[in-house]
């Protein structure tokens, strides 16, 4: 076989490899996908919270998708402080207006963006939150100010169903 011509056998090999690769992929994918969130986990994707009892200056923590969500009713001083921060001072610049649609209510995932610990309320150098795991400081808008966390604490999708109820998710 000195001639370099594609023959029947080459075609068969290539076709076999191709079908084999597709087969292996199709077999492995279901096994990998079983590890992704299942239907029962996804079904718990939204939570309604009654916030009528929260006083100004207090934070409540609720569980949403297995993660804590902080709902803080901010005082006028805190709102003023959050709005006064210059964008240049921020590691992850976000305006307070964009984070809290209704400035009185800050609703955010209580999960440190570094490695997922729950930051402590009213601690740290910026009057907001402090993560005890690796020392990230957040301000009263939940924005990262100091420490290893790369971004601000996340704002989940939420809306006021009525003036007393917030629906998260």
């Amino acid at each position, binding site marked *: 076989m000195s001639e370099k011509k594609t023959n029947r056998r080459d075609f068969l090999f290539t076709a076999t490899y191709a079908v084999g690769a597709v087969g292996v992929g199709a077999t492995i994918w279901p096994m*990998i996908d079983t*590890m*992704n*969130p*299942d239907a029962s*986990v996804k079904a718990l994707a939204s939570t309604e919270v009654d916030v009528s009892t929260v006083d100004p200056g207090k934070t409540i*923590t609720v*569980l949403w*998708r*297995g*993660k*804590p969500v902080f709902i803080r009713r901010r005082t006028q001083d805190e709102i003023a402080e959050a709005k006064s921060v210059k964008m240049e001072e921020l590691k992850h610049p976000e305006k307070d207006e964009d984070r809290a649609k209704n400035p009185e209510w800050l609703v955010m995932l209580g999960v440190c963006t*570094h*490695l*997922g*610990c*729950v*930051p*402590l309320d009213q601690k740290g150098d910026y009057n907001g939150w402090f*993560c*005890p*795991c*690796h*020392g990230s400081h957040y301000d009263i808008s939940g924005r990262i100010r100091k*420490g*290893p*966390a*790369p971004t601000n604490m996340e704002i989940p999708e939420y809306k006021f169903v009525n003036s007393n109820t917030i629906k998260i998710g």
Partner: protein
Amino acid sequence: MSDHEYIPKSKFGKWFNDRLPLLTLANHLTDYPTPKNLNYWWTFGGILTFCLITQIVTGLVLAMHYIAHADMAFDSVEHIMRDVNYGWLIRYIHANGASMFFLAVYIHIFRSLFYGSYKAPREIIWIIGIIIYLLMMAAAFLGYVLPWGQMSFWGATVITNLFSAIPLVGEGIVTWLWGGYSVDNPTLTRFFTLHYLIPFLILGLVVLHIWALHVPGNNNPVGIDIKKPSKDTVPFHPYIVIKDGFALLMFMIVFAFFVFYTPNILGHADNYIEANPLVTPAHIVPEWYLLPFYAILRSVPDKLLGVVAMLSAILILAALPWLDTSKIRSAVFRPLYRQFYWILVADVLILGYVGAMPAEGLYLLIARVATAYYFLHFLIILPILGFREKTMPLPLSITEPVLGGSQNLALVKDRKKFEN
């Protein structure tokens, strides 16, 4: 390795061995020529085998009583401690056994570093060893999650979140690892499955580790190549078996001390509080054996680079046979390396200490210096040292330092010719 063909004495033995040469293997293992100058630092291979078997056997018994469910795991562990006959003993052996396993593996690794056991022709043994070490860390981490205490839960959260540092796909990978949007029941069940699987993977790799070892044979404290079998070797059985056995006994005294007198000293009190996804313990620390790497992670202020630094600190070991350019194996004949070796030991101990301390102020500064030195040792000092260091003359045989001469007198006379 002995070249002679082994023939079983009994007729049945011969019949069986012709069909499955198990007896040949057993003969190879008992006769296996071992350097006769092996010191007690060489007994940790046997000790580690003991540790692995102990973990597998105690783990098997625990798995019969443990329930891998987020609502029941914590209580089932307490049930093992209080209700199951000797459950407290088995669990304390398993929990402290993990620490003993790491204690032994660190001594084993640092013995290899001192005597240059990772150098040619033993690179594959070394790399398999590093893979075993990685799997041990994975198994230990997964196992620590199973009691579903506060440290379990938050340790799992922090470690799985390391993957979120990967750009683009990170978050997806973390969700996939969790099987949800946080560490929860699906995470616990898969962690239990993998925790059960990994020891058997380790067992398989241990077989390869020993197989690869039996090709060139053991390194030894003088680090020179020896003829096998020769007057420089003794058969594995009974000489090494007895020595390993004695060392194992000493090791078991330490082991038993922890199990019976301070079974919780290496654990963390917070893990006797059931997992609570709303509250992170004030001070999260991993188990002691992971502290140096934890310190490296925290010493880098950037999330992705911190994770990269931590992984590199482990993976850099796999490249060690090529980073160390010196042809001389044993630190006994490398006066400069010997000093850098002890500095590295101190550096790792310092990293372990600051890893247990809060990541701020002076501790953070020390962690950064120690992290920098760790990489400096492997990436700069070792490669240069191989070229610059003036090493001491090697003996021509193991017996020479003891008897003042080689078996081969001609070699001793002309030894200048053989030295490099």
